[in-house]
């Protein structure tokens, strides 16, 4: 299934053209048409009421506007679940138009799945999780891909790149990014604007590498024939001092502009660690940038380590971990865990 969205309304027709050329047909399902009449995905589950109540009680720091936006996003998640159940499994070439933010929907899908897990083993929670988990698995396996359009404008391309970084950080596969529309000489656009648009496109290609990034040419939207790949890459090495260096590459992250230096700190990319399991000091590396949060689960070795600092270089984050002695059985070499 191909999720299609555009950062601005101007890109909608272009990206849908690209989607049609990519999958070979022009049928489009509108996610919005599933968002309201089919709330049974959640409304039938008491656990959603629990979640909504919990959010409204414990989330007193949120404004009502935030809460409503959150509930709208939950509805989009419900619609995605519904569309996947109806079209995704038997029609791999289904094209689904999403008017909102796909990274936001995917983030909420992930969060709701975890909340349903936390909610316990009650029947409603199990029902909800049974419907959410297959969709999340499809997102992570590439059965659900994302095709995204952004205009050839520097701020828009920057935002689009960060959206892509967030999506790949959640494990989503991105079919490609379309830069459209491009100003044409034929339409009377001056040379200066046309050149600036091409420079913006070139910048997007660099920032988003290795994700396929194409632009419209001669008024035609291109196809994206190349299959998606796992764009986010993580690895861990052990340095000479025995520290473990975890690196995570998120294509698109390099588009972020760094704020004023404050003792060398980067103000707009926050890196931290988090533990979902009280038995370990670390289970996830957390990266927060723009309005996105990426949680990347670390391997069994790093679970028994504590992070001490982080370095950001372009689209790569490096986090230094040191072993927590209490986590390593005496008499066993710490290197064994890294083998």
């Amino acid at each position, binding site marked *: 299934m191909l999720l299609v969205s555009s950062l601005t309304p101007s890109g909608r027709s272009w990206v849908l053209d690209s989607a049609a050329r990519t999958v070979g047909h022009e049928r489009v399902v509108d996610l919005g048409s599933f968002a309201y009449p089919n709330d049974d995905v959640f409304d039938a589950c008491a656990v959603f009421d*629990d979640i909504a109540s919990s959010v409204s009680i414990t989330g007193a720091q949120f404004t009502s506007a935030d809460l409503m936006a959150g509930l709208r996003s939950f509805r989009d998640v419900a619609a995605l679940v519904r569309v996947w159940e109806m079209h995704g499994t038997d029609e791999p070439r289904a094209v689904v138009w999403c008017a909102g933010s796909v990274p936001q929907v995917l983030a909420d899908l992930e969060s709701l799945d975890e909340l349903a897990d936390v909610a316990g083993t*009650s029947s409603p929670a199990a029902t909800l999780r049974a419907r959410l988990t297959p969709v999340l698995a499809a997102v992570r396996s590439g059965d659900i891909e994302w095709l995204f359009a952004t205009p050839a404008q520097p701020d828009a391309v920057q935002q689009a790149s960060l959206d892509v970084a967030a999506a790949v950080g959640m494990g989503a596969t991105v079919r490609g990014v379309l830069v459209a529309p491009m100003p044409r000489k034929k339409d009377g656009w001056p040379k200066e604007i046309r050149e600036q648009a091409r420079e913006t496109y070139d910048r997007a290609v660099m920032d988003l590498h290795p994700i396929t990034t194409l632009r419209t040419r001669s008024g035609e939207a291109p196809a994206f024939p190349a299959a998606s790949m796992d764009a986010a890459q993580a690895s861990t090495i052990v340095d000479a001092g025995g520290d473990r260096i975890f690196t995570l590459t998120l294509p698109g992250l390099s588009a972020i502009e760094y704020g004023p230096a404050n003792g060398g700190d980067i103000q707009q990319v926050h*890196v931290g660690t988090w533990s979902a399991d009280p038995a370990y000091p670390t289970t996830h590396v957390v990266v927060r940038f723009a309005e996105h949060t990426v949680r990347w689960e670390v391997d069994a070795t790093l679970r028994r380590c504590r992070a001490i600092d*982080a370095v*950001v270089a372009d689209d790569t984050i490096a*986090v230094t971990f040191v072993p927590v002695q209490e986590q390593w059985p005496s008499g066993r070499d710490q290197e064994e865990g890294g083998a």
Partner: protein
Amino acid sequence: MNEEMERPPWWLSGSNDDNASGNATGSAGDPGIGGGLGDVWSLLGAVGNMAGDWFAASGASEHADHGDPRDHPDCLVCKVLVGVQSVSQPASEPEQLPRARWLPVRRA
């Protein structure tokens, strides 16, 4: 004046008799601005007294001495706290998870 304060305010009596109407518009023959404000202040005062009485009756003022909310089912505040916990932790009361620990970040 004291006798008037001992009576319930007109908006609690539920009656629409002339006396009640007269009280509502201030002193008879003196419907000016000062009288109107006086009614507003007395109204606010009455609401304040009611709120105070309700607060005291609820036992909320004694809540500061309460430890585990589940041990004080008669305390309104404890009752609300238990209700909130039962909603936010609907099942097996998962262990409290720590917050993210943010790191110093350098730019390469």
